[in-house]
């Protein structure tokens, strides 16, 4: 259970600024909106009520972690000071909270909805809101606005509504998406151009917002597991691992050594699978179709291994609370051991056909640079952060599974450009093979599933667990009130920070580079929109 400090909204901004400067809390890991309901007679003085926010902070210098929360009881006009001037990622996170809970962040430069339509009525994640009743399916096209509203705090304490212009009349704005093959799903960018140069990008998310977090609140714990696989489907094992770990941590369940080994091996196989697909898609986006076939050739071998043990090719549904669904297939060890040398011997083909190619080099090197400070401020974890020199690997920061027993290197590049992001992932394939090689022969005997009750009640409290997903830190924040369903289950998306950063990364580059940058950032849209 986490220790959560409460800060009053009036002093929130100053307190956060102090933490940032004095304690070097430069990484805003996650920002979660909460609805703690209205005051009740049975409340003890400690019970927190109202609408609020939970902040997870971490220092990349000292490694210290803080969890803070704030709340306001005003449900009509909830106002909380914005921290978007301290951490850049707070811009998107606060828009998400505004979208879900209607909390207005004072001082936020761009208070629009992030996922839902502009004309959506109500705030779906509030406990007293019935979104379906108020919002039937509408087939009229959504109107896109060129302006946004900002709520400013005057020096005398009064609040002023200010309208800011996103795109002026004289600007040349190109719309890319939502249906565009190079946006990797349904993502929409509005790009302001000056000749061929990108002046500004406005990312519109939510075309695949499936309301998973709201659904979780009415599902039992084992049921919530099923939805995690479908968030980031190229990190199905890892996502589910994170949620299982969080619930197990909350309940104090120790899983057997065997399960830890199996989960770690599966996570790494999944990472190779994801990186191979990354390679294939990036190459295809840049027009190298042969490379696409290479990537899929090896990926199919992995999918066969998955299929034998888990039964699924893409959505595996393998991890369960307290273990895994079924024991390893008798062929598993043999096939994985065949795969490792095969992959090592064939990776040179990848580099021959694409990495060394002059066109690929020209289009990737020096393009879309993101500095280490920006990567931290935006919270761009995973390959993107490591390409900028930020050692953000959760496997090293907060070891889980059996990562503390294996020897592996955290791949770091310092250039921060598209090529570094590409190389990080290619090198990580090799590191993952190394991890699997160390584990595959030593899988201990034991049970693959702890005995669990069919209905699980998690003790009251807040819990956070994170794993290193295929494209960054995937975190699960669980607040339980002792029921059989979670009170709030929030996922730290790995892709949202990457999309938040795309405006900063792309400014000044050419429009064609947007595709290469988007490809190397490697986001998966259903994971962003949740």
């Amino acid at each position, binding site marked *: 259970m986490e220790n959560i400090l409460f800060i009053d909204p009036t002093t929130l901004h100053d307190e956060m600024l102090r933490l940032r400067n004095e304690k070097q809390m430069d990484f805003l890991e996650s920002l979660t909106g909460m609805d703690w309901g209205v005051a009740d007679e049975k409340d003890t003085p400690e019970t927190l009520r109202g609408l609020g926010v939970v902040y997870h902070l971490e220092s990349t210098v000292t490694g210290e972690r803080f969890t803070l929360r704030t709340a306001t009881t005003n449900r009509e006009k909830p106002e909380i000071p914005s921290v978007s001037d301290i951490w850049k990622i707070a811009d998107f996170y606060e828009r998400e909270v505004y979208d879900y809970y209607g909390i207005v962040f004072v001082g936020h430069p761009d208070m629009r909805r992030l996922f839902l339509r502009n004309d959506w009525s109500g705030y779906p994640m509030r406990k007293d809101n019935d979104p379906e009743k108020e919002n039937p399916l509408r087939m009229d096209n959504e109107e896109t606005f060129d302006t946004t509203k900002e709520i400013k705090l005057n020096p005398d304490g009064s609040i002023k509504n200010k309208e800011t212009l996103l795109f002026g009349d004289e600007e040349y704005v190109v719309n890319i998406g939502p249906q565009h*093959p190079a946006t990797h799903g349904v993502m929409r960018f509005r790009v302001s151009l000056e000749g061929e140069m990108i002046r500004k990008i406005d990312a519109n998310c939510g*075309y695949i917002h499936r309301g998973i977090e709201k659904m979780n609140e009415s599902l039992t714990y084992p049921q919530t597991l099923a939805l995690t696989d479908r968030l980031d489907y190229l990190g199905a094992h890892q996502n589910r691992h994170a949620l299982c770990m969080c619930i197990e941590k909350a309940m104090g369940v120790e899983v057997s050594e065997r399960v830890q080994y199996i989960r770690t091996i599966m996570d790494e196989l999944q990472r190779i699978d994801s990186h191979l697909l990354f390679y294939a898609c990036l190459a295809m986006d840049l027009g190298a179709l042969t490379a696409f076939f290479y990537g*899929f050739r090896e990926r199919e071998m992995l999918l066969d291994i998955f299929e034998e043990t888990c039964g699924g090719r893409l959505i595996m549904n393998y991890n369960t609370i307290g273990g895994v669904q079924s024991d390893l297939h008798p062929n598993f060890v043999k096939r994985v051991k065949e795969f490792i040398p095969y992959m090592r011997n064939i990776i040179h083909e990848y580099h021959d056909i694409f990495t060394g190619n002059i066109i690929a080099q020209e289009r990737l090197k020096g393009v879309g640079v993101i500095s280490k400070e920006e990567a931290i401020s935006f919270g761009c974890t995973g390959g993107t952060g490591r390409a900028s020199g930020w050692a953000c690997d959760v496997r090293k920061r907060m070891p889980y599974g059996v990562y503390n027993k294996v020897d592996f290197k955290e791949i770091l590049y310092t250039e921060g450009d598209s090529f570094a992001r590409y190389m990080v992932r290619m090198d990580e394939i090799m590191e993952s093979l190394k991890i699997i090689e160390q584990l595959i022969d030593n899988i201990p005997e034991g049970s693959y599933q702890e005995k669990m009750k069919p209905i699980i009640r998690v003790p009251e409290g807040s819990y956070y667990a994170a794993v290193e997903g295929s494209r960054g830190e995937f975190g699960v924040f669980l607040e339980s009130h002792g029921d059989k369903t979670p009170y709030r289950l929030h996922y730290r998306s790995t892709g949202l920070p990457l999309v938040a950063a795309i405006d900063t990364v792309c400014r000044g580059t050419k429009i064609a580079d947007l595709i290469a940058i988007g490809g190397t950032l490697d986001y998966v849209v259903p994971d962003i929109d949740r």
Partner: protein
Amino acid sequence: MEVTKKPKIKSIPYEEFIDNESLEKLVEELNAGGANVMVGVLDDLVNWGRSNSLWPLTFATSCCGIEFMALGAARYDMARFGFEVARASPRQADMIMVCGTITNKMAPVLKRLYDQMPDPKYVIAVGGCAVSGGPFKKSYHVVNGVDKILPVDVYIPGCPPRPEAFYYGMMQLQRKVKIEKFFGGTNRKEKKPENF
């Protein structure tokens, strides 16, 4: 008049397909007024060509899209069946494979994509989400089945469907295309419902 036309796929026994009845019924309905010998043959020729080069729109919202990409790769190779020309523009596509969840925000966009496609056009609902809402049926932001907004020709269940299931569904569509009638007499297809 007896109609002998059958929605056959070369080298696959007719009995291996299920749902032959509804296709046979469709043949009967289309040829209710009789089929001209000359024009009927011309129809067969055109449909032979059309059914073997159906161009899909590159459209995917989530997980099923990855399996659709796997179809394009070497192992499953959809070029064997004439599906390989995936078009990025709806104006060049024959059919749309709705791969993945359709949300309320996406629904008008999908409808617009469909409207931009030239006739004759076909819709395949791929995966649980597109068929009925799937695991997200209870969500406030998910359309429970793409047939609420588009007329669907073939449903492929699964979460996500296996590539083999994709092919089964795509061949069913080919069979449907094979029996359509363009020349001689009106095309007695189902009337378009009002709200589409």
